[in-house]
């Protein structure tokens, strides 16, 4: 496994196909020993009718790609796919897919957890909750999500932000 894997990143309104995406990372190769997957689903908390996900077209793809490239640089992956949906999603609907493939399970499992933790804190999506009866509210960012991302080390994402600010001559 030489050279960094180029991750597949998609931001889309339509559902994704876990089986097809898994096959795309394993078909025709014999060096994959483990494929880890995470699927985030819309949960019906407190009578939720739907989640509406807004995002920042352009930056979203860039931010996810940057996180995925960090995973590919940090772990010896043979493949990596991240698909994040936007728009109106009802309870039970899949929202996000993270797939990581590697020769060995630890790299696949760890990088998959890293990716979902960092997506929660670095990908520009905002969730609005719609309830039966018409009430709605914006989901607030959770401190535990920041803590989950931070356990991977103040990592490349933060360092990248610092480097960017330094390049532009700004403070951090």
């Amino acid at each position, binding site marked *: 496994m030489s050279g960094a894997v180029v991750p597949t990143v998609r931001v889309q309104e339509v559902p994704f196909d876990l089986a097809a995406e898994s096959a795309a990372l394993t078909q025709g190769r014999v060096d994959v020993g483990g494929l880890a997957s995470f699927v985030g689903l819309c949960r019906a908390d407190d009578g939720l009718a739907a989640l509406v996900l807004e995002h920042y077209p352009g930056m979203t793809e860039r931010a996810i790609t940057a996180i995925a490239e960090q995973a590919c640089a940090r772990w010896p992956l043979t493949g990596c796919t991240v698909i994040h949906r936007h728009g109106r999603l009802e309870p039970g609907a899949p*929202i996000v897919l993270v797939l990581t493939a590697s020769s060995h399970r630890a790299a696949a499992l760890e990088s998959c957890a890293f990716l979902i933790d960092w997506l929660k804190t670095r990908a520009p999506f905002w969730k609005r909750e719609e309830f039966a009866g018409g009430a709605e509210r914006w989901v607030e960012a959770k401190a535990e999500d920041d803590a989950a991302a931070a356990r991977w080390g103040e990592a490349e994402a933060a360092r990248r*932000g610092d480097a960017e*600010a330094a390049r532009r001559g700004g403070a951090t």
Partner: protein
Amino acid sequence: MRVLYFAWVRQKVGVAEEEVAPPPEVRDVAGLIAWLSARSPGHAAAFAQARQVRAAVNQEFAAPGAPVGPGDEVAFFPPVTGG
């Protein structure tokens, strides 16, 4: 300069994006927030709790001290809640 707003910041400002031409003394994200806040009551409401507003300059997360200038794309939004 193109300014974009997302989520509740967009709702409070009342528009998703606008072209603005701040004076030269507006040099960084914090200065732009102060200048934008005076444009309308909606802007003022959006930036009233500046600690809850995050920024990106040219599609990279940016700190309050990050420089901004003509031609930049600057976005303001709440802390992200994806995943």
